[in-house]
């Protein structure tokens, strides 16, 4: 972490702490008051009226509290900025927990809307735009999406890197078993039919604490750079929510780098250099001025062959065994993906060249699959570098080990992930990335992963639950 070189001290003043404490107290008071009010209101009420009332209450609450900065109650102690709640105009109207809210009971924030009360027609767009459901099996529409994301998904102009999602990758990410075409929501300019915004949903099964849910995973929210002032993002979110409601789904999972009300967990990215010189040349990483490049390169050298006996690429016949292994391993975490069918595993885990690679370990004696791991390929284009166009990156995806003893598991994971690094290196990958979720902290340091400047916040829509550390998270989103 950066030394507090600006001033030499990092503590906030006692006065500031006191103020923050007072604000928290006020917030709790106001919440209690709001709860009291709602219990005394008319017992019979339509869900729509109830929602309107709730929204009004939220608005009053927000106005009552001049919270300049909600303190993040996370245990991570990171000084990540939490935006002034009043600036979250949109989120304050949505069924999400508020910053600083104490969670006592798990459950939905608003009730399911009965089908006949769900809005039938799409939300209104500014007049020059129209809705357009994308057909990703049509090569030209897939290309349009690819172009939109490539140029606009990473939003700032001075970024040095951009995600370079391939067409095959997008099909993998957006067309899992049971996918709904109506959840591939595009916005076009009416006059030119040009695609300028997109948001997607895919069906997913998760378990959060003890609650198993079939819900929608929201991803790839993207608005063309030139149209950021049109406030299309809130309409896109409302529209994908409406389309989820129409399918009888009222909860969602999503992730973002930005802190919104309110994260379930916050994970940090870690990066393991496989091609250290290129990463330095592209400024993906930096070389301290007193460190010889030669030592840096040597530090990240890997053997040219894997060392785990019985390791091999996963085959279709391994699907059932991998599913059992994975669901069993995931049972130890609090927020996980659930793989309900072999079809799910076949889609999500089985190798698709240049999209996802998966490997199993087969016990040479029993021929049983004992472990597996997978990583997906998502390169980044390098902006404005004369020598390099692309950083080839893979991201650790799902994995499972059988070992129940923690110490043995740690050493097993270190062995397996070292092989994963070697296999990635053989595919000419420059950097191997992961989050500090699952049991990744068991190998991050030992295998020379370094902390990234990126964080990923996990969110649920219309679900209230306690926060958790990243080591309790077992959901990997693309």
């Amino acid at each position, binding site marked *: 972490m950066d030394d507090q070189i600006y001033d*030499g001290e*990092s503590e906030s003043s006692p006065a500031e702490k006191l103020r923050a404490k007072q604000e928290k107290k006020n917030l709790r008071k106001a919440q209690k008051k709001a709860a009291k009010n709602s219990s005394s209101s008319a017992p019979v009420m339509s869900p729509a009226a109830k929602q309107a009332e709730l929204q009004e209450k939220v608005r009053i609450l927000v106005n009552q509290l001049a919270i300049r900065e909600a303190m993040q109650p996370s245990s991570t102690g990171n000084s990540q900025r939490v935006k*002034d709640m009043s600036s979250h105009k949109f989120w304050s109207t949505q069924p999400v927990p508020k910053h600083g809210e104490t969670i006592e009971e798990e459950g939905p924030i608003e009730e399911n809307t009965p089908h006949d009360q769900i809005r039938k027609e799409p939300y209104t767009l500014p007049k020059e735009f129209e809705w357009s459901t994308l057909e990703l099996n049509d090569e030209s529409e897939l290309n349009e999406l690819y172009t939109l994301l490539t140029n606009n998904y*990473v*939003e700032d102009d001075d970024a040095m890197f951009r995600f370079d999602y391939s067409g095959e990758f997008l099909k993998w990410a957006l067309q899992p078993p049971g996918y709904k075409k109506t959840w591939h929501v595009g916005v076009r300019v009416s006059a030119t039919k040009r695609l300028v915004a997109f948001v997607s949903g895919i069906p997913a099964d998760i378990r959060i604490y003890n609650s198993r849910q079939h819900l929608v995973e929201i991803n790839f929210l993207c608005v063309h750079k030139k149209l950021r002032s049109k406030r299309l993002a809130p309409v896109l979110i409302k529209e994908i929510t409406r389309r989820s409601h129409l399918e009888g789904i009222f909860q969602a999972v999503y992730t973002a780098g930005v802190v919104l009300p309110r994260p379930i967990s916050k994970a940090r990215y870690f990066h393991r250099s496989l091609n250290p010189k290129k990463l330095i040349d592209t400024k*993906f990483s930096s070389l301290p001025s007193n460190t010889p*490049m030669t030592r840096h390169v040597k530090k990240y050298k890997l053997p040219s062959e894997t060392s785990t006996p019985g390791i091999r690429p996963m085959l279709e016949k391994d699907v059932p065994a991998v599913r059992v292994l994975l669901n069993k391993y995931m049972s130890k975490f609090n927020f996980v993906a659930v793989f309900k069918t072999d079809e799910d595993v076949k889609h999500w885990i089985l190798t698709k060249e240049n999209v996802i690679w998966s490997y199993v370990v087969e016990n040479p004696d029993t021929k049983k699959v004992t472990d597996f791991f997978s990583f997906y390929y998502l390169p980044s284009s390098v902006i404005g570098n004369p020598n390099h166009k692309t950083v080839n990156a893979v991201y650790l995806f799902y994995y499972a080990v059988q070992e129940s003893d923690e110490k043995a598991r740690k050493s097993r994971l270190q062995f397996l992930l070292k092989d994963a690094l070697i296999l990635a290196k053989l595919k000419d990958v420059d950097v191997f990335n992961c989050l500090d979720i699952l049991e990744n902290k068991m190998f991050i340091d030992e295998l020379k992963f370094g902390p990234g400047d990126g964080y990923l916040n996990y969110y649920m829509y219309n679900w209230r639950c306690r926060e958790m550390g990243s080591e309790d998270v077992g959901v990997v989103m693309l």
Partner: protein
Amino acid sequence: MSDTDDNLDTLSKQFVSAYKFLNKHPNINISNDVKLQLYGAYKVATIGACNTPRPSLLDFRGRAKWDAWNELGGISKEAAMNIYIEKVEAENVGWNKNSVDEDGSEVNDGDDEKEKSYSAPQDRWTYVSTLSYENEDDLIGDDIFAHVKQGEYNEVSKILDSGEVDINAKDDQGLSPLHWACDRGHLEIVKLLIERGANVNLLTSEDETPLHYACLSENIECARYLYRNNVDISIKDADGLTAFEHCGDEFKQLIIQD
């Protein structure tokens, strides 16, 4: 309130706002030099002229920070605040003194679009995470090693002319100037050092030759030059590998071809 008081009040509000802004956004990319200047100005603005003894030679960071503070001498607190404010503004990181309102806090009209004008990574919806900057030991001195690392040909040449250094001396990491020149790919300095009699087969503490350094750090021109100047290509390092065994056949062919 008199005019002077009023001005001072505005100044300190701007100063506090700038300082808070930087601390709120620790990932803003500011060069070490500017960070040090900011540190010095902050110290004078809040404490006054430097009043502590200079840290020891080995405490690079502490010493650099102390120097930055001391350098400002006896300037007034107001002058120091002005320096701080101007430097933060000049960095163009999304803060300027006009964004300070009457209460001394940053103006925030609640419009998300405006907040995107700066790009601290954690405020973006999506971005590509990269490795955090490791700035340990990032301050270097002004001896021959420092000038070689930074590719300052004339400085290196001057030091060699003075005859006050042993061209084959090693630094605290066990590297000679020639190793560093090969490591950083400064071909002209490699030539200069060899012309002035640097030992081309000198070993580091890990038995690496300058050729090992040129090969491992993929500086092909340096490697070619060494190869044509009678280096011993059979020397193995502590890992038991020659320079060419480290770099692979393709690279080796590029070095040995005419």
